[in-house]
């Protein structure tokens, strides 16, 4: 599962590396930068770009020197991939030929609701269950284990149970499907 994900990520990264030279210095606006960021994979979930993951917050171009500033929202406060993500963004945006700064902010909390529809599909294809709604504002939000069932990414069954609220990375839990009898990973609802 993770191997397939890595291959997708590598394919995406390669696609990014061969971006058309026309993009190099011609038109630089927020949309062009965001389009370029769609080539940058998340290191731990490489089937998702940083855009699909929903961590790209503000994108600004300084009016004085044209420098690019990107604000990102860490998925988890202690995410060890953060420095790698920053470096990947700087590398990708170097094609625009301007100074690039990437900073992390908690001004808006990243929540699992920020993963795009395309991101949900990419996770499913890689055998990882996408997150259900984070349950923000619900009084029972603390009772994660009693939340709505997470469908199995392999067979679609809703007869799945939480095996471990903690998984191989900070953003994943481990579940088990009672129908196809497969363990699977699911994105934590935060």
């Amino acid at each position, binding site marked *: 599962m993770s191997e397939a994900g890595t291959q997708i990520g590598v394919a995406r990264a390669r696609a990014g590396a061969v971006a058309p030279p026309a993009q190099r210095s011609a038109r630089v606006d927020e949309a062009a930068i965001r389009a370029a960021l769609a080539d940058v994979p998340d290191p731990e979930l490489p089937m998702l770009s940083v855009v699909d993951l929903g961590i790209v917050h503000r994108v600004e171009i300084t009016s004085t020197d044209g420098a690019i500033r990107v604000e990102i929202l*860490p998925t*988890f*406060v*202690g*995410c*060890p991939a953060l420095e790698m993500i920053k470096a990947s963004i700087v590398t990708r945006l170097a094609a625009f030929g301007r100074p690039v700064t990437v900073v992390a*902010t*908690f*001004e808006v*909390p*990243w*929540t699992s609701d920020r993963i795009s529809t395309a991101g949900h599909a990419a996770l499913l294809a890689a055998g990882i269950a996408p997150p259900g709604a984070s349950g923000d504002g619900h009084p029972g*939000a*603390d*009772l*994660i*284990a009693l939340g709505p069932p997470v469908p199995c990414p392999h067979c679609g069954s809703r007869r799945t149970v939480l*095996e*471990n*609220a*903690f*998984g*191989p990375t*900070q953003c994943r839990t*481990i579940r088990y499907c009672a129908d196809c009898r497969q363990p699977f990973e699911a994105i*934590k609802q*935060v």
Partner: protein
Amino acid sequence: MTATASAPTTALAGLLLAVADDEFVIGFSDSEWTGIAPLLEEDVAMSSLAQDELGHAAALYGLLAELTGTDADAIAYDREPGAYRHCRLLDHGRGDWAMTIARRYLYDTADGVRLEAMVGGSWAPLADLAGKLAREERYHRMHAGAWLDRLARDGGEGRERVLAALAELAPDAATVFTPLPDEPALLEAGVLTASSAEMERRWRAGISPTFERLGLPMPPPARDPGRGRLDHGEAFRWLWSEFTMVRRSDPGATW
């Protein structure tokens, strides 16, 4: 980064240091289970919890370093044991599994109340971070709560051990709420939206239904409330020697 108009840097620094040290010390304590937890799933869980807590500590030390113009790693690793300001609840050594669960339950529930009091605070860097931390800590509370329930309802050795652990922790259980020296300034500036006394009241109200349902004795008031973040004993000296070992082996090394 600047302090708020009315909260002096020293008051903010004292708050950040206490909260960061709490997260740092419990994170390292959790990591002691990596490889030896009673179940494989718990090995994963405790390692992930440790990673969360050390990440939280790094973010808080980072705010403190920016505020005071110092280095986050130096704050985390270059102090003598007596200069740490974590609460004494975290000073009882790793202990057995029941001790780990009892400590985590008491700490996680208290930390949740404290985060709530910071989320609406007037100093945006801390209020924003606290909002994010609160989302992650829900998982920690669920984990500790599920295990406390399981051990306490076991009726046999599990219950005996959890009762023994709660008895040992009892005098220090409420030390998360040790008033900080500059608490009045933090309250006046709105950095904290509740006093330590009010937070402790909310914490007790929050955990008492669980303690009642499980037939466990509620923690008494802290034995020595004025010194709840001081006088760290032998167990912490040992942990400190472990987590500073690499750093001390080659001071100033770059990685």
